[in-house]
């Protein structure tokens, strides 16, 4: 892990978890730690976990802080800082520890549970409660924050900037928090020598602190979305909440709907009116939206639906991630209903992919489903500012008084100009019923075939360009994946290179319509393909087998959520496979 660093005792990434219950304020501390790292120039990623209680439950903030851009979690945690041990074992599987880890807890709360001790981690007592009490207005979580910051090697200035910014109204509360944090930092000194984070490698100025949900919302607005219908659902709600004021600022509107059936139909209505529109939901909501998505396909109305995937099926585990909505995204509409399915492959990529989805939906007059997930949506990241991208084409609009206007005219490209209400001489009725070129309902076989061909032709006729997938690296071995597995795969590749193993990555951004020719090209010279995905049913593997003429030997690494996929899992798979 320490490559070519000036001081072999330094490292490029450190992972720290903080846990506590009953109002301990672990999330607050975690966020401040991330912000401190951000102010100090580092990159980072924070995810959260909690018990089911609405209040007072156990919570864990899991951070990775790095001197270089990162896209996913590491294999293990260097430290678990527990303000108390109450019910902490629920997080044991999410916070892997080993003999090199520190298990830091308050002796006032007793010993660490056996499940954590048996990892071999070095137990370190720190009296958070007592220390906090000794500082007027001090809280244990701030002590823990200071300790964590020192462990991570975040300079004092960064920590103070973060605390100061979050407590602007400040005064005594700010002073007390700073003092408590300082006391925590002092505790870390007592731990002895500890590998520090290397200095940050990137350009300080061009970084963002952002969640995947925010990034997707921003991408949507950049793409031109100006109407959103919102129904809250974990873990997509924050995307909608971010968009409410953002849309208002750019002259758009957000309406809260009474259910997902309403939100999907609202955006169809708004888009029919000429305004690019979007909604965001998760698996259960997407199921409800199936019928109206089909209406969008049949009536050729562009919309974007962001599915922030969570563990399924049914209500599943709302606060955890999984990649198991591929099937419903691809196949969930009744009838033959070709449409777009895309998936961002990093938090930063949520901007580009959502923006691209809007562009494609508008150009092709078709619904687009964007498969984000909870691992992205609710992760808070410090990352390199994504490059600006712009897409030139827009919705093809019928001109006023167009002679003999036919809304669903059988054009060569399959895309027929769309009349926007308010335009004279081009009135028509958009219909889910099968229709003639004019849009009049028709049960004629010739019309049905002609319109089916049209709706498929328009998606197949265009050149999707370079964004269809990220294709990286060379080798006889390849990994095909999508979404949040991409980051761990990239990291696994970096490690495998150190072992002398070279592999190619194909991370699909455009999942539908299929791109068989491009895939053949991308896999030229590859003898074995490992398909990596986070679901129980190997959905991507089956899709690839069915739709892509892959000659190479196909193998699958797939497991369901809720635990994140980690680089070492992939690394081991690659090693195994390369030897076999």
């Amino acid at each position, binding site marked *: 892990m320490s490559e070519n660093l000036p001081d072999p005792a330094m490292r490029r990434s450190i992972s720290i978890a903080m846990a506590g219950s009953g109002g301990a304020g672990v999330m607050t501390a975690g966020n401040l730690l991330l912000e401190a790292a951000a102010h100090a120039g580092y990159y980072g990623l924070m995810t959260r976990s909690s018990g089911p209680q609405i209040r007072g439950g156990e919570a864990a903030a899991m951070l990775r802080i790095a001197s270089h851009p990162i896209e996913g979690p590491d294999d293990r945690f260097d430290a678990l800082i527990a303000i108390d041990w109450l019910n902490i074992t629920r997080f044991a599987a999410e916070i892997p520890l080993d003999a090199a880890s520190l298990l830091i807890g308050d002796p006032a709360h007793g010993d660490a549970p056996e499940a954590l001790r048996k990892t071999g981690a070095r137990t370190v007592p720190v009296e958070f409660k007592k220390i906090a009490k000794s500082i007027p207005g001090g809280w244990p979580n701030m002590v823990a924050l200071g300790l964590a910051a020192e462990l991570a090697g975040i300079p004092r200035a960064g920590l103070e900037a973060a605390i100061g910014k979050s407590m602007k109204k400040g005064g005594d509360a700010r002073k007390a928090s700073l003092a408590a944090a300082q006391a925590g930092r002092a505790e870390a000194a007592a731990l002895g020598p500890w590998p520090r984070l290397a200095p940050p490698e990137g350009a300080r100025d061009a970084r963002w602190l952002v969640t995947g949900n925010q990034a997707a919302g921003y991408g949507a607005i*950049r793409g031109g979305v100006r109407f959103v219908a919102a129904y809250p659902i974990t873990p997509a709600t924050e995307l909608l909440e971010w968009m409410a004021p953002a849309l208002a600022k750019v002259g758009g509107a957000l309406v809260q709907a009474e259910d997902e059936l309403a939100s999907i139909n609202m955006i169809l209505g708004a888009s*029919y009116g000429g305004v690019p529109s979007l909604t965001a939901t998760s698996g259960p909501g997407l199921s409800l939206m199936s019928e109206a998505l089909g209406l969008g396909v049949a009536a050729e109305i562009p919309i974007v639906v962001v599915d922030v995937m969570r563990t399924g099926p049914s209500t599943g585990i709302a606060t955890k991630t999984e990649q198991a909505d591929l099937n419903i995204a691809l196949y969930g509409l009744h009838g033959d209903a070709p449409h777009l399915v895309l998936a961002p492959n990093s938090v930063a990529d949520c901007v580009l992919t959502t923006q691209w989805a809007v562009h494609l939906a508008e150009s092709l007059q078709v619904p687009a489903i964007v498969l984000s997930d909870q691992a992205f949506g609710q992760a808070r990241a410090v990352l390199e500012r994504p490059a600006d991208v712009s897409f030139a084409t827009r919705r093809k609009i019928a001109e006023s008084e167009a002679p003999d206007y036919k809304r669903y005219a059988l054009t060569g490209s399959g895309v027929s100009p769309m009349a926007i209400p308010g335009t004279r001489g081009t009135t*028509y009725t958009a219909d889910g019923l099968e229709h003639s070129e004019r849009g009049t309902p028709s049960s004629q076989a010739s019309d049905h075939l002609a319109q089916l061909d049209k709706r498929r032709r328009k998606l197949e006729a265009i050149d999707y360009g370079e964004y269809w997938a990220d294709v990286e690296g060379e080798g006889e071995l390849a990994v095909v994946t999508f979404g949040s597995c991409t980051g761990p795969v990239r990291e696994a590749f970096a490690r495998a290179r150190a072992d002398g193993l070279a592999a190619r990555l194909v991370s699909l951004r455009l999942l539908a319509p299929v791109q068989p020719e491009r895939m053949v090209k991308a896999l030229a010279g590859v003898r074995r393909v490992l398909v990596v995905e986070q679901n129980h049913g190997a959905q991507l593997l089956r899709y690839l087998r069915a739709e892509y003429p892959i000659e190479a030997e196909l193998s699958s690494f797939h497991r369901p959520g809720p635990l994140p996929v980690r680089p070492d899992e992939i690394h081991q798979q690659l090693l195994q496979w390369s030897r076999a």
Partner: protein
Amino acid sequence: MTAMPAVAITPQTFKSDVKPVWCPGCGDYTVLSAITKALAMLELAPENVAIVSGIGCSSRIPAYTTCYGFHGVHGRALPAATGLKVARPELTVIVAGGDGDGYSIGGNHFLHACRRNVDLTYIVMDNRVYGMTKGQPSPTTEPDWDSKLAPEGTGLREFHPLVIALASGANFIARTFSGDPNGTAKLIVQAIRNPGFSFIEVLSPCVTFRPEQRGWKQLVRPSPVEPTDDPARAARRLMTDDGFNLGVLYVGNRKPYQPAKAPSAKPADLEREFAL
């Protein structure tokens, strides 16, 4: 929004040449005629009017006009119309459908559309039956009406849409009868002019599955009282209403919902919030 017509605007301006599928005698014919009359009276241009519907006999109506039409899925006309109107407030948006589409599968959206009070005019052609699917009870069907799906009747108290509309916040509530095309046309004009969510229930007989509804001619009457703007008084009237009082029954003064849309920033400005 008034048009600058090159030709005079008449009801014929709004009639398309698509032939309705309805049975002769169907009440929906007069509603179509009343809508075209009303739009002509308001001197609107067809391109500035949108008619949004769901699924059912009544929902076929958009294609029979020369306005922009949206024939969506069953029960979801109101949200589609809401999205359209919020995105394009300058359009006149009319929502049309039947009692099954509007009060059963569309029931939830009905409540919230009344509540949200977006400037729409919702016309429900109520024939107390699911006509398109061949004669099942609807929420407004009488409890003892015999059908295949519910022999000897559902036994369920029927839905009272006007009461629900009032309780949910509709800003204009009226009832009319398809046997009164001119009265219906006038009512539609009033409803469109009234800001906010205007709800018109049209008693519209289904001559095929409920031929006895021809007898509604004898049962309807002009409402014996003037419209009120007092919700409590309206509530008392509507709770004792027998379903055959015609006319405007309630006119409220709630402000219509229309999110303000003057931009104050450019999209690129939004990223400042993320920038370190």
